[in-house]
């Protein structure tokens, strides 16, 4: 067989010219019935008579560069569950007393957001989230039991309440991920209904926890366990710390002396949470649009400013959503409170303060998502310190949370964020390393 004949055979089998001598030799062996080393000699002849032109590159599917973009759950279900959580605490506050409720909330909120951060990063950061959680069931169960136990220990006058809050709030993540956000809201409504018809508060808590627990189990058993292992504790740990830090900041923002109705204090969290979640969902686009853009760029050309502009546009879009949603919902709550006569002078500063912490959360979650966990933990730690110092030096907790804390956090995050967004292609590559 001569070079031209061999080339014809190779191209007929491949539907294109051979990439190199090895490919030609392998095709000649596999489908031409020849054996090495004659295939090598013939392969060389094939390459010699093949016109030297680079193969046309066709666009590939932009498979995700980073296999674990932050998951943000399902929008509407998420809003339902957030609203339900905020509203559920109102009758609980009445039933258990504002003071016990406040103590429970002080411990349960940071623990819950920390746990949610941990679970999000460990199981839901990528496809098949519930399947990964199911595979990690023992570890997750032990963690949840441990968190509930710690919270109960730290709350001498409301152990059952604090433990249940953590359990019910953390479980919301699984219900929402399963697409059952509205059902979750219904489960909490059942607990509220029980209180209204005179069921004792602890029994109502047990009922709610049972319903939520049953849904949790149903959500997990209704999906198969995936072969994909959960994210390591080492990588998920910082997400937990960031969450706990944001929870602490939210508590500090609310301050020790809320002068209004307890239900309003809880409802005030809703705008910041919703704004932050919406912004986070938008931000997850980075993991889709950037790889799509990378596919169209050759390594022979520098990354260029286009990608950075794209990343910054997504970032600003997220920030705008956080501010817009928080602002509009805050105004709605102000209007509602005024209508029912529950508005107090402290309400507007409280909403502003919680909105400020929402912005901090948005920034640190982005840092964490882009693989800069140490920076994220440092920023949230500095924000916590700033919040304490602001109080010590005479600022009200709301003023501190509204201006000082976000100011410090944004200042600290500016450099790493600019660096990350400026070289977004490499930032996404690095976040998996």
């Amino acid at each position, binding site marked *: 067989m001569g070079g031209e004949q061999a080339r014809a055979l190779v191209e007929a089998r491949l539907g294109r010219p051979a990439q190199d001598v090895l490919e030609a030799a392998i095709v000649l062996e*596999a489908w031409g019935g020849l054996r090495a080393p004659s295939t090598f000699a013939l392969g060389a002849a094939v390459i010699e008579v093949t016109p030297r032109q680079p193969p046309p590159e066709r666009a590939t599917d932009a498979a995700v560069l980073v296999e674990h973009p932050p998951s943000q759950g399902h929008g509407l279900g998420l809003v339902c569950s957030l609203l339900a959580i905020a509203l559920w605490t109102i009758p609980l506050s009445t039933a258990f007393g504002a003071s016990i409720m406040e103590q429970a909330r002080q411990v349960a909120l940071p623990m819950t957001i920390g746990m949610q951060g941990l679970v999000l990063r460990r199981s839901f950061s990528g496809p098949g989230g519930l399947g990964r959680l199911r595979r990690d069931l023992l570890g997750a169960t032990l963690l949840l039991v441990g968190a509930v136990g710690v919270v109960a220990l730290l709350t001498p006058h409301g152990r059952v309440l604090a433990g249940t809050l953590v359990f019910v709030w953390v479980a919301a993540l699984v219900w929402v991920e399963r697409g059952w956000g509205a059902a979750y809201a219904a489960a909490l409504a059942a607990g509220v209904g029980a209180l209204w018809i005179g069921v004792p508060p602890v029994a109502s808590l047990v009922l709610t926890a049972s319903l939520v627990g049953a849904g949790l189990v149903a959500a997990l058993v209704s999906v198969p366990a995936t072969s994909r292992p959960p994210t390591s504790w080492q990588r998920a740990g910082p997400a937990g710390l960031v969450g706990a830090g944001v929870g602490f900041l939210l508590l500090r923002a609310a301050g020790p002396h809320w002068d209004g109705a307890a239900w309003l204090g809880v409802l005030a969290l809703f705008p910041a949470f919703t704004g932050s979640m919406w912004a986070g969902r938008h931000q997850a686009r980075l993991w889709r649009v950037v790889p799509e853009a990378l596919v169209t760029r050759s390594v*022979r050309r520098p990354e260029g400013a286009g990608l950075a502009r794209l990343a910054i546009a997504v970032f600003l879009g997220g920030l705008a959503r956080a501010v817009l949603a928080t602002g509009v919902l805050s105004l709605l709550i102000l209007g509602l409170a005024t209508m029912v006569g529950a508005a107090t002078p402290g309400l507007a500063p409280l909403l502003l303060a919680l909105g400020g912490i929402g912005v901090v959360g948005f920034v640190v979650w982005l840092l964490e998502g882009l693989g800069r966990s140490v920076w994220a933990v440092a920023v949230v730690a500095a924000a916590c310190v700033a919040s304490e110092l602001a109080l010590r030096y005479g600022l009200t907790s709301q003023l501190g949370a509204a201006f000082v804390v976000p100011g410090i956090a944004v200042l600290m995050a500016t450099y790493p964020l600019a660096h990350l967004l400026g070289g977004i292609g490499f930032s996404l590559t690095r976040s998996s390393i």
Partner: protein
Amino acid sequence: MSGPRILMTTEGTYPYVVGGVSTWCKQLVGGLPEASWQILPITAGCRLNAPLFTLPPQAEVVKRIDLWSDEVTPWRPSSRAARDRTSLPAELVRELLGWQGRTDALVDALLWCRRRPERVRAVFRGSTSWKAFLVALRDVLDEQASEAGLAPDVDLHRASQLYQTLYWIARVAAVPTPPTDLLLVTAAGWAALPALVHHALHATPMLLVEHGLYVREAYLGAVRTDDSPSARFVATRLARGLTRASYATADVIAPVSEANADWEQAFGVPSSRICVIRNAIRVMPDPAPLPGTATVISVGRLDALKDIHTLLEVAAEVVRHVPEARFVHYGPVPPGQEAYARSCDALHATLGLGERFRFMGGTTDPVGVLRDADVVIMTSISEGFPMSLLEAMSQARPIVATAVGGVPEAVRGCSFTAPPGHVFELAMGVVSLLRQPALAATLGRRGHERVTERFGEESWLAQYRSLLLELASVAVAS
């Protein structure tokens, strides 16, 4: 234990995955109890899976390397005086993907990873390293070599994936290996990385056993998938780089067939370093007769290299001639081959095979399932010296197979063979055997005689015992 210590590195096989190479490892480790076996498996995506093989007392898994996992190298304090090697990714891409990559430079880069494991991640996370990597990749793409065609354009997305792959190569090289007398590498790919570094550090003898040829399988895999030119380029060049380094470093290469040996020589390995040891099997003296149920059985993972599409087409052709014929395929879907498995299901539906061809999934008893066969078929486009055919011969089952790799050496005189992808010839082989039970029985009996005479486990073990002890004694003496 007084025998030599042997560090066996595996890649996607023993003891976590069932298959021909795993069976070979099990036979060898179990058959040489005088050695102390240290198993270093490299797997991908099955971190939590339990081993599928029970290790004998003389063997232990020293460390498991799970590629693509998100485990971070444990932090260790490091000297500030020592500078990071920000050129590491660039060096790896040049020496592994470059057509004229240098093995000594590659091994030097890998050695740095072993010496500074705690810095590997930091180096790859640095933007200086990334920029140097892109420059080096451009150099590789612009490289002029007469044997290589022009390289395709590579986009940044592909470059990013390659960068992450190189990070894992560095991670694997950084994994510490225990003191040992002999390195036994079971594939000239990722499994060679820890051995390359150990060999460079301690001059421990290295034996490379090649079953399927790593580089050939990588090329065939790339040919059979619908990947873009840049994806093919990266996958094949990487395999070529790893194979070249393995061949250059191994003291002895033990291919499982003459066909593999020819390839290794064509790659520049001198014949003095090549020692062919064909696979073997424990043979039972009285195999069961053919069942006479027109059952055709195949065993092999659902993988493009096994060419299941051809198998399905052969089945469709056979049932046209022998309507009562039934095909049964045993084999798991390995990670990464899900799309191929789906394409097999689609073709199965298109061909309307229904119950006449059944996918049974993996089996832990590959020999036992063959007892139900009147014919055993294999349609691979690449093989070393397939254990599944030896198993069929040990059960006196007639074989229809593609003449690839060491298959002709294994089944000469007791089978029908055809070139890969030749559906009609393969189908006619099956039809002939199903229609002529006497011929089938004769070929089966011949196969049993052949495997008993030539591929018995005892002589195979004796060959390995001799080779391993000889190599290990060099290390002990030095």
